[in-house]
């Protein structure tokens, strides 16, 4: 069963799993980092992710092009983000409550429109075979990397640069830091937040497209296992830092791959327990980040979950 490489199969399977599983985390958390850096929190990402998965799949089925599907998902996510951002600009509206409503709304809408697409098969996103040099089939399988993964890593570095070296990035940080300061500078905080929430929504929906168009690669109502929500915890864990998001996504991805990896090396008992690893990790991240004294270090001051 292990094909002659024995226990080596475990880290290899985990590596492959981490790359596969982390991609949606990466996109959702990068988007949410930008949203939260503007001082808003969007808990609706789970719903946006599910809707993104559905719309990507549906458009891919219709057009035969998976990349058109990804673009459609990004567009739908941006629209959901705009809805969140627009509602939240009214006084006394709580962004957390709107986020929860949006989560239910997005999933519900996705199930409604997605019914006819459960059966047909959509073309998958292409993968790059980075493991062609190796003769070990497990390693080759692990290094089948989808193009979205390197795209996400690149996006993280672009975001880090943008937050530091562009006018838009500084404006985003000012808005997240203090509405007062933004007003004094003539920056329209609501507009910046609207843009940031749109971006966050688009990224979350691309994460969803990855789920339905690559891994697991089908559309059904259980497509998400809470990645949209866990990504919010992941952002806190990553201290609102795009590069931190890459590391945290790989860690969460690796934890998510633990269960299947154990199974692949022939462990038949108790691996179910390890399926819970990402959730335990989420819990751990939340507890660690709310420990008194260091709570919210690095958190945007305008964020309602801040200290």
């Amino acid at each position, binding site marked *: 069963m292990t094909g002659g490489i024995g226990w080596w199969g475990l880290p290899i399977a985990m590596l492959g799993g981490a790359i596969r599983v982390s991609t949606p985390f990466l996109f959702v958390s990068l988007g949410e980092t930008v949203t939260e850096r503007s001082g808003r929190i969007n808990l609706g990402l789970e719903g946006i992710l599910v809707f993104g998965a559905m719309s990507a799949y549906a458009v891919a089925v219709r057009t035969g092009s998976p990349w058109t599907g990804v673009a459609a998902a990004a567009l739908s996510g941006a629209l959901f983000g705009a809805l969140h951002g627009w509602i939240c600009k009214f006084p006394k509206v709580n962004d957390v409550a709107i986020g929860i409503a949006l989560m239910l709304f997005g999933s519900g809408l996705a199930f409604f429109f997605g019914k006819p697409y459960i059966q047909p098969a959509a073309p998958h996103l292409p993968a790059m075979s980075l493991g062609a040099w190796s003769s070990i089939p497990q390693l080759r399988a692990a290094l089948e990397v989808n193009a979205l993964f390197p795209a996400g890593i690149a996006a993280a570095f672009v975001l880090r640069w943008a937050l530091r070296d562009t006018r838009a990035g500084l404006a985003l*940080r000012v808005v997240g*830091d203090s509405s007062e300061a933004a007003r004094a500078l003539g920056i329209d905080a609501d507009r910046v937040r609207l843009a940031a929430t749109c971006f966050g929504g688009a990224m979350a929906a691309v994460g969803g497209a990855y789920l339905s168009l690559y891994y697991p690669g089908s559309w059904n109502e259980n497509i998400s296992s809470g990645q949209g929500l866990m990504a919010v915890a992941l952002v806190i864990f990553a201290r609102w830092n795009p590069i931190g998001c890459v590391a945290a996504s790989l860690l969460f991805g690796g934890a998510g791959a633990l269960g299947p990896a154990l199974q692949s090396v022939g462990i038949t008992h108790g691996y179910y327990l390890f399926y819970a690893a990402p959730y335990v990790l989420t819990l751990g991240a939340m507890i660690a980040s709310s420990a008194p004294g260091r709570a919210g270090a690095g958190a945007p001051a305008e964020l309602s979950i801040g200290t």
Partner: protein
Amino acid sequence: MSAGARAAEVEAIGMSMRFGRFVALDDVSIKVAAGSFHALLGENGAGKSTLVKCIMGYQRPSAGQLLVDGREAAIGDPRDAAALGLGMVYQHFTVAPSLTAAENLAIARRDAPGILDWAAERARLADFMARMPFKLPLDLPTRALSAGERQKLEILKQLYLGRRFLVLDEPTSVLTPDEADEALGLVRALTREGSLTALMITHKFDEVSSFADEVTVLRRGRRVGSGKASELARDELARMMMGDQPLARPDDRAPVGGGAVLEVLGAEAPDRTGTKTIRIDDVAVREGEIVGVAGVSGNGQREFLEILAGQRALSAGEIRVRGAPYRATRAEMRRMAVRFLPEEPLRNACAPRMSVMENLAFRTFDVDAGGRRRFLLDRAAIRERARVLVERFGVKAPSLDAPISTLSGGNVQRAALARELDGDVALLIVANPCFGLDFSAVAEVRARIVRARNRGAAVLLVSEDLDELLELSDSIVVMRDGAIVHRTPAADADVHEIGRHMAGAE
């Protein structure tokens, strides 16, 4: 950027501002000469902010004319003012705390490019800073700067933007005296060298006499006086500000004589860092006596107050009120008539979004006239009680149903004091009661405290203002490092000796 630009001359002629029948500003003219440091003095509500808002374009005056450098200027909104080189520094900070000073300055520029070239940006900043009379760390997040440095950064930001005329709206209200001196010293240096004109809103006489060249005094929307700051004495300025309206004067003091009301015996508790211990060996306050607690802030006064308020558990010792052990429960406070007025009452003694009426009822809403606990509220009685208190203490509130957070600082303090002094008071614990209040409110609050004392209340007054302690107290104790290190009767207290004990240099 034009930090070398000449200072602007700004003149407002016949400015008036009416809101319906209410006249906020009545035909006020003011001329701020180029390169001068002009103080605008007045009580809260005298029209200082309205005048400044009209100059800066935040409000459109009902009548009046504005001249900048002798030419008529039409200012419709703050952007027009900025284009003419007029800028404003607010009471609170407007720099983003997690950005560095350099980032704050870079983003403040109107013409900041989409992609920042940090090398060019730094060269520009270095060039600008070289012309400034002081240095500031540019690469630390501004939250790491002291309040004084942040206020200086605010001023720098305005200069970096090429402002030639600056309005400073009570710029020192969040600064310590030393920081205030630094920030205002910077402004004065810039006006002296002729690159800036400053108009400072204030109600602190010291700032006027030590920094300003000229002063204009407003009262009830009218200009009531002006002149050279060096030629106007303090009393004269005070009289202009207050008009004929008499300041509340404290009653003559009744002699102290009575039993101990509050006794603190060997009380020990950990401080807020948890690393040190607060130990108050023996403090007693008698009937009709004010005991002042002096000390540099952060020497355990806050913990001492928390102990007395029941917010911090004792690890040893005890607190007694009239000989009985006291643990600051609501029942004990009521039975023993203990009242508490913490500092910043809006934050620490009020529910900001609840109404004035409800806030005034916090001590009494849950019992009926006979002192029994009740289930349903008697809203009519609560309203009547609030009406009486508001009238008796002169609280200016738009209505009894307005959220208490809409009141000015002085009126919140009056309302809190009204609640705490209502009925019999055996023990009153007060902390920094005059923080941020204007002249007449300070006098009134102090007179009320003395009156409570004369009626037989024991008063423990914790304050960072030594003048206040000397004026009000019968005896003074000094706290340092969480312990009482010095006691003296107030009558023959030596300020310098108290200062030495506060600083720890006996």
